[in-house]
């Protein structure tokens, strides 16, 4: 990991916080999971906590591509939505057990990400963003035009998971606390997976591509293949978030595939900080809490959230968590 704190020559005063920060980095997965365990007791509602869990997972997965590989995708709603739809259809129409439905959703999302990645990573910069946007809208219109499968405009219903069986224990899945902790296992799994990827040699390769694509290529990295793998892994994590959302809502809105949902993922990631592992999760948390609080006051809550977002992009480009890590902990 590039840590700006380490770049500063270690004077006696700077050494201690730098060590503290490297400890935070080293134990980022257990610390994150600890935070997730406490989350439902700190937020006003359990439903909000589940939403944070879902979008936090999605944003962390998205950031693998955006923050760490340097590719701005405007199409990640396609993977979230596809994961959700496949899970819903598998349970509702085929009576597949919930855990297999989750697996199918994740695999389906991964396959779609592989195809979309293969088409989009051939392009660069703004063209890449536009291709991802266009392909994701294609998926949206496919879902809109096949109502017998997806419920079309009305979204997909009729696959409520009431209770789940876990090693002989029956858990009431309608209870919000139970639901939160079951879904938390998936979120924790995703965080652990992303952290492992970032710590791996592949993690170093994608950072090299983000830093200087030409140099990475000259060093002997197959830039196209590396980008495609990153795109696929990122889409897979997002699809997992989608399956979690399907289980949570027992409903898949068509809007989950819409480009506005992709935009929201980008906003959450930037708000929390694309340069850090846990930043996107914080971004999702802050975004959803703002939505929750401000929408009580006014139906135009998006104006407030949008303004705050713009202020962050202009004045704190490292986002909430990124700024905290570099400024406060230094």
């Amino acid at each position, binding site marked *: 990991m590039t840590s700006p704190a380490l770049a500063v020559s270690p004077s006696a005063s700077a050494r201690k916080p730098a060590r503290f920060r490297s400890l935070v980095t080293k134990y980022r997965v257990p610390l994150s999971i600890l935070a997730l365990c406490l989350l439902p007791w700190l937020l006003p509602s359990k439903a909000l906590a589940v939403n944070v869990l879902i979008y936090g997972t999605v944003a962390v997965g998205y950031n693998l591509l955006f923050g760490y590989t340097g590719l701005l995708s405007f199409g990640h709603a396609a993977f979230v939505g596809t994961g959700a739809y496949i899970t819903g259809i598998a349970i509702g129409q085929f009576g597949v057990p919930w855990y297999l439905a989750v697996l199918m959703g994740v695999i389906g999302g991964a396959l779609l990400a592989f195809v979309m990645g293969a088409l989009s990573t051939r392009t660069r910069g703004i063209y890449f963003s536009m291709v991802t946007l266009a392909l994701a809208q294609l998926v949206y219109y496919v879902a809109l035009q096949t109502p017998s499968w997806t419920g079309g405009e009305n979204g997909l219903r009729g696959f409520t998971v009431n209770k789940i069986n876990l090693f002989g224990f029956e858990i009431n899945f309608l209870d919000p606390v139970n639901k939160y902790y079951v879904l938390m296992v998936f979120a924790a799994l995703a965080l652990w997976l992303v952290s492992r990827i970032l710590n791996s*040699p592949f*993690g170093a390769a994608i950072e090299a591509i983000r830093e200087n694509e030409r140099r990475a290529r000259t060093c002997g990295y197959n830039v196209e293949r590396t980008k495609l793998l990153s795109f696929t892994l990122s889409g897979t994590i997002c699809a997992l978030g989608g399956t979690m959302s399907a289980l949570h809502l027992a409903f898949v809105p068509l809007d989950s595939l819409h480009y506005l949902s992709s935009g929201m993922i980008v906003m959450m990631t930037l708000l929390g900080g694309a340069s850090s592992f846990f930043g996107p999760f914080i971004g999702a948390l802050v975004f959803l809490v703002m939505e929750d609080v401000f929408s009580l006051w006014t139906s135009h809550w998006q104006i407030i959230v949008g303004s705050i977002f713009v202020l962050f992009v202009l004045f704190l480009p490292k986002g909430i968590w990124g700024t905290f890590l570099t400024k406060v902990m230094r």
Partner: protein
Amino acid sequence: MNAPLLAVNDIGVRFGGFVALQGVTTEFRPGRVTSIIGPNGAGKSTFFNVLSGVLTPSSGSIRFKGDDLKGTKQHEFVHRGIARSYQITNIFPDLSVHENVRVAAQASRSRYNIWTNRNRFTELDAKADAALESVGLVAKRDETAKFLAHGQQRALEIAIALISNPEVLLLDEPTAGMGPEETKEMVALLEKLASERTILLVEHKMKMILGLSDRILVLHHGRLIADGSPRDIQTDPEVRRVYLGQNDGYA
């Protein structure tokens, strides 16, 4: 005489209607320093781009150790044994000096492993430190690359290119933008490197080229107009005409 390491045959490169290289045929034997000179726009950088896989020539062929490199992707060149540096410094600006070289070393060891902790590959750390040692940057190991002095960034780029232990090293103006002191250090470094591998050099500093090179190629308007020892090149009438005729003061 030993077999040629790298051979090009009748290379041509066209950009639309513009002919950047035309009918270039030559070969490079192991263990020598060959400089490529010529006025601006002569095709030196294009020639380097062909030799390092950045550009696919419009016509002609390149052979490396007898293998045709047609269809070889740019990122495969370094795995075959051809590495390069760029005229404009090309490093990973936000990584530390050590990470710059380490990630380059990793390219020949592990590219798609998403599972193992990268710190387990301790041999890469040792390799990176050895490369930094050879270019005199060990003291700057933990600094962020973009904060290095210009000359040090140039040296870092050479360390990145060296890490794959290439048989052929292409250096595009390694002393570009350097003052006399930094240039002197770079020349000392190049002399050290020249004892171990084949070096191809594009440079403008004539005195340096004459001192360092075993052989000089002269390009002019995309054509190879002279090829010989520094002494031959200095007395070649065609070369004198090209340089003196343009009066740009290189010769």
